[in-house]
């Protein structure tokens, strides 16, 4: 009788590399997720934690076994980020997130009456 555990999908977790830049109106976060398929890239914001997970399927050459490389990284967001306005774009293995800042945190000109 074959041991079903032997063929269970193995998961290997990797922390992906990121670049974070700040401009006056938003933060731009770029995450390297080589091999991940768009449908398996998940970006969630819960309270002020940003979570990025993605699955990259891997087929072993030796026996054709399917396993998954999972990318996973979390960040704590500061108050100046508007969690309702996050843009996400995934292309060529790179996830680019634009985290817009809340309007009150952008510098404003105050008119004098």
């Amino acid at each position, binding site marked *: 009788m074959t041991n079903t555990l032997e063929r269970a999908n193995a998961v290997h977790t990797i922390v992906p590399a990121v670049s974070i830049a700040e401009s006056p109106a938003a933060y731009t976060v770029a995450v390297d997720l080589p091999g991940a398929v768009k449908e398996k890239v998940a970006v969630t914001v819960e309270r002020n934690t940003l979570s990025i997970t993605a699955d990259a399927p891997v087929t072993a050459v030796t026996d054709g076994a399917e396993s998954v490389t999972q990318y996973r990284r979390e960040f704590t967001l500061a108050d100046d980020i508007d969690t309702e306005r996050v843009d996400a774009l995934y292309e*060529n293995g790179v996830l680019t997130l634009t985290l817009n800042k809340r309007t009150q945190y952008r510098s404003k000109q105050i008119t004098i009456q």
Partner: protein
Amino acid sequence: MTLTKWNPAREITRWDRGIPAFRGVQSLRQEFDRIFDDFFRGDILASDPLFNDNWMPAVDIVEGKEAYILKAELPGFEKENVSVTFENSVLTIRGEKKQEQKENDGTVHRNERRFGSFERSFTVPGTVKGDAIDAQFRNGLLILTLPKAEEARPKAVPIQVR
């Protein structure tokens, strides 16, 4: 004359990194490999976006029964900017990625990602069928399949016991 085991995945320019004693602790070792890779692959100045010229993409090479599979991580590259050539048993992967952001717009808080042009070469065993090499680039991952010639594939040879 001594015979040394031939390593088909030996690179032209880099030293071999096997650490046999730690093979049991697979995932921990892979993490360490990555840390050392990031350190040795780039320059000490590589974390500075202006000096990001000397980096090498991560490559995995696995030998199967019928082919060698080479996977290179090239996130952010466009297919048009990646080239693969095979000449005289040398496989060369070249790529170019220009800096994406305009540096003067704001503050860089963290920059772990590498970009810039690279070129990486590997010697390939003569048993590979050079004209049948297949290359696919999807989601920032380049997968090369180097099929082995018929004679090189392992065959079970029954030996008669007399």
